[in-house]
């Protein structure tokens, strides 16, 4: 870790990088933002924005259940709960008895309310309120390594399974005729999102995680005309808003997550205008 710190200080001759917490935060941003940028492309294409939002909200319930059952590592209970939640949601969605957005909002409000009720018993909720906004400045090297592993797993998934995921997102019947296992593709993608959302939620925050997942991709979509441009733009926008947001929040003394979201949203509006002008 020290080599990386020294390297950062050499290549970035700014005053903010002298603080170790800023170095950690910068490293975390450099890992999380490309991850979110890539993942976001298919969340947006698959119209799953509601789904990832619901997953974020279910984090509270995971923590609450972990607290009740006396599990020390809330990461574990959160991730386990989110995976079950994601698979169940995906299963019920495929039954097609209710419209997906109604279903997801029922599930997510129930889950969140349950979590809040359990955690607020005896007036102790303030202990957990940092989860709402997230705090990337408190991340430690061990947790950065964990994020790094997730990034690698996601990249492997993306290289191996992307075409199938892409085909299913376009049309399930056509994908089925090409002998693609739709259930496997959908379930594995849901689980991947669940794991990533849960393991990064402490740093990013329940309230804004979905914005970070979907905004860069939505902005990239405005100006991209094929998959290569889409991935490139989404990735660049995500990394750019992440790093600029972190530095700005340091100087302005604001919360990091929301600052990043504001920058990403501004880029979204700019690309929206460019896209509209271009298509005319």
């Amino acid at each position, binding site marked *: 870790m020290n080599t990386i710190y020294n390297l950062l200080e050499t290549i970035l001759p700014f005053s903010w990088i002298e603080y170790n917490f800023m170095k950690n935060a910068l490293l975390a941003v450099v890992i999380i933002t490309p991850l979110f940028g890539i993942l976001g492309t298919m969340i947006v294409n698959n119209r799953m924005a509601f789904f990832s939002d619901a997953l974020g909200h279910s984090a509270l319930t995971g923590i609450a259940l972990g607290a009740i059952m006396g599990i020390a590592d809330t990461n574990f209970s959160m991730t386990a709960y989110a995976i079950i939640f994601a698979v169940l949601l995906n299963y019920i969605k495929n039954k097609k008895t209710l419209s997906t957005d109604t279903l997801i909002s029922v599930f997510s409000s129930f889950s969140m309310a349950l979590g809040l009720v359990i955690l607020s018993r005896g007036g102790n909720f303030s202990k957990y309120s940092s989860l709402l906004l997230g705090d990337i400045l408190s991340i430690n090297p061990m947790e950065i390594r964990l994020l790094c592993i997730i990034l690698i797993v996601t990249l492997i998934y993306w290289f191996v399974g992307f*075409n199938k995921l892409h085909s299913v997102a376009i049309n399930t*019947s056509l994908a089925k005729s090409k002998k693609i296992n739709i259930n496997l593709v959908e379930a594995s993608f849901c689980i991947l999102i669940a794991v990533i959302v849960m393991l990064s939620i402490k740093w990013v925050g329940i309230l804004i995680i979905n914005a970070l997942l979907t905004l860069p991709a939505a902005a990239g979509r405005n100006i991209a*005309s094929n*998959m290569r441009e889409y*991935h490139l733009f989404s990735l660049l926008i995500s990394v750019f808003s992440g790093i600029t947001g972190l530095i700005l929040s340091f100087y302005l003394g604001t919360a990091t997550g929301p600052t990043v979201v504001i920058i990403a949203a501004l880029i979204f509006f700019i690309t929206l205008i460019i896209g509209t002008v271009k298509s005319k």
Partner: protein
Amino acid sequence: MLWTFNQDIKRNKVHESSGNFACGQHCLKIRDISVKADEEFIIDKINLHIHCGKLTVIIGRNGAGKTTLIKAILGEVKHSGRIEFTDLKSNAVEDLKIGYVPQNFHIEKNTPVSVYDLFAGYISRTPVFLKKSKKLYDFIKERLSIFDAQDLIDKRACDLSGGELQRVLLAIAITPMPNLLLLDEPVSGIDKNGMELFYNNIQKIKENFDLAIIMVSHDFEFVKKYADHVVLLDKTILKEGTFEEVSGCEDFLKVFGRVE
């Protein structure tokens, strides 16, 4: 990473070099296919016998179970019964490969998916977000050119007209070459010229490649001209035969009236 795609080229070559026409020696038997929903049969004991090189058209009123039958053959809905595919030359039961053009193929506006991306996603393992492969690009262009759609390759799929999209989907459906091509009302939303072109293309597939075609259609003018076999469906098969035979039967007249 290109292996699936290379294999596809080889497979197509084998198919196309074994005579550029249907051999008539492949036979597809659909036996007792039934689909049930809530204790009620949507389709009940459908039996069909199909040969390669033939266009079978399924007609019937709305809700007769046409799409359900297609989806049952495709394996997308649960069904009872069997589908057997045999090569009469060797009498061997073979794996049935299906090509499919869906009824409603809608790509949301502004989706950043080019025709190349759409096509490559089905036939290559190399993720489409990476750099385009020249070899794959040329191959896709060649497949698209069967239906005169090669110039669409770099366009966004969501910007195509109904007819253009249809030609792209046909090219995708026959790559790799299937044994059975399923077309579910493929011409909805296409004008008369487009339809003429479409049926010409179907005729071209029928004559040039070794496969059987099942199509759901309402356009009797074209059905009369192009279909080899017509099946009138309403939960079960009410009547099958040539268009003249079917259009003269009582059940047909009740639903559609007299068709000249």
